[in-house]
């Protein structure tokens, strides 16, 4: 787990490919928060965890982490896959969350949208689908194409497939449970998201999570925290200040 900064505790849950990386977004947040940035099991070089067979296992895993860190409450920010885990956590234990920020989460079944099948995409297709600005993808590029790197990527893909192959990228039970979320929630969305487009995906999340606010980032695809880190970090800061404060 990576950790830096001072201030209120903020748990950041990364998306696919974001494990083990301290990027601009976390660095910006660390100016105002104590940022905890764990790698999901099997991601970012961390060991595989074969006991994880459902997205709720990851949610419980992070509730355990909050306990282990002695954090009764924290701000929770999750992007994409991490947003899905964050939403599951919020349906289980909103009382542990000072606030919830979901950045282009996947995780619920949409009316009128089927997520394109990520596991069948080669790297160029993934970049085109996930990024509005492909240059932003460089931050997630693997260091090399060595057997070790490929094996770690396979481990990471396996960890994702264990929870997201079928149903692809969602938990059939999550959508109706979103009504349980009581944490103040900000939904951030990239205007050009091609994996989970604003309409219907972002709009559905904003409708299903009680009282959620929706903010759209005009120059982003699926990963606005990587494509417009300053703007998204500022939005997070502003929202958290309203709910629970920074210190």
């Amino acid at each position, binding site marked *: 787990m990576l950790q830096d900064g001072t201030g209120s505790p903020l748990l950041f849950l990364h998306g696919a490919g974001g494990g083990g990386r301290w990027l601009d977004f976390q660095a910006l947040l660390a100016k105002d928060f104590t940022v905890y940035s764990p790698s999901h099991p099997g991601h970012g070089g961390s060991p595989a965890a074969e006991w994880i067979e459902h997205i709720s296992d990851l949610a419980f895993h992070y509730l355990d982490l909050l306990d282990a860190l002695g954090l009764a409450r924290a701000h929770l920010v999750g992007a994409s896959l991490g947003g899905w885990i964050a939403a599951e956590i919020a349906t289980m234990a909103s009382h542990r969350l000072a606030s919830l920020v979901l950045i282009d989460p996947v995780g619920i079944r949409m009316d009128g949208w089927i997520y394109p099948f990520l596991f069948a995409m*080669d790297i160029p297709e993934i970049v085109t689908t996930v990024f509005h600005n492909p240059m932003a993808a460089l931050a997630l590029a693997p260091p090399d194409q060595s057997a070790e790197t490929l*094996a770690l990527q*396979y481990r990471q*893909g396996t960890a994702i*497939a264990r929870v997201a192959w079928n149903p692809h990228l969602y938990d059939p039970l999550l959508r109706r449970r979103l009504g349980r979320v009581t944490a103040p929630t900000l939904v951030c969305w990239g205007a050009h998201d091609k994996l989970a487009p604003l309409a219907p995906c972002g709009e559905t999340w904003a409708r299903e999570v009680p009282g959620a606010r929706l903010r759209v980032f005009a120059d982003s695809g699926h990963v606005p925290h990587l494509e417009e880190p300053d703007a998204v970090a500022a939005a997070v800061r502003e929202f958290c200040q309203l709910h629970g404060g920074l210190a």
Partner: protein
Amino acid sequence: MKFYYFHLMPYIIDHDAPSSWVTLSNRHYDPAVGHRLYNQYLDQLEEAERLGWDGLCVNEHHQNCYGTMPSPNVMAAMLVRRTSRAKIAILGNGLPLRENPLRIAEEIAMLDVTSGGRIISGFVRGISAEYFSTAVNPTHSRERFYEAAELILRSWTEEGPFPFDGRYYRYPYVNPWPRPLQKPHPPVWCPSQGSSETVEWAAKRRFPYLMVFTPIKRIAQIYGEYREACERNGYKASRYQLTVNVPIVVAENDAKARALAEKHVMWVFNVGLRMHPPFWRPPGYMTEASLRRLLANPPKPPSELGFEEADREGYLIYGSPATVRDKLRVFSDELKAGILCSGMTGPSHEQTLEMMQLFAEEVMPHFRDDARIDETAGVGR
């Protein structure tokens, strides 16, 4: 040596799509052509029995032009009633691909009873691409395979009804009617691509191991691993536990055979097995250990295999009857494979039948010192 006639039932077309699997649009499939092909292919299998082949093989693949038998049991059913002597080897049913694998136990038992005990039941995981076309989670593949195999074997050998409560498959009542005719159950074969986990699993149960479309050096290596695994399990592998599948082209002379092989066998590798790269490697289908072994010595995609290399590496056999006999000696005498599962591919149905006849008359009789042995006795169960 025993000879089994292996059919893929391909839908042979040339196309420019990046993958012959999963995404190749079925608009390319003309059912009128399919009608002719299915019937010709079944004629070829029936003819193989008349020409002296010991077994006839069908297999399961989905959503591709390489092999158009999504249900091998359907094809086996047709052969059961049109043949009387040959074994019918289903190589195999993709166990993890089924939500209800008890259905496989039932269908194999139906075929075994109807055929008078001629069925060989292959258990496979299905190749990587199958996990895209069936949407079964590849990270469950291995566990589902073991669990479904256990369920099927128990359903064939234990008196029902009994409950089965697995991780993936659960039944309050396992009690299939009919039960298979062969005792304790039809022989089980394991067609595989050489993962060490499967080698161990098959060797432990005396299930014959079948290498499909593999270079000869790798066959030798995997056979070695299988024999060692058998010894670890306290017995010596019978030669009928070592089965090989290599495409064969035989013609009057080497030059003619080469020309046919270059065109028709290479279609199987270069077009039939052309695959969008992610379809080769779904996450979790292999263990990380298997993947690391593979990355240490990455195989060339079949679509990039050239004829010279395929020839040199022993991916195929072609030549005059005398040449084919010589090349087959490597499999029978050096690798000591007991069963050859091979199909013939000619430029037309008629020429394929002629090729089969040439093989049956000029090649097969030279390998028949084991004609009186039952290759299924004591193996596969």
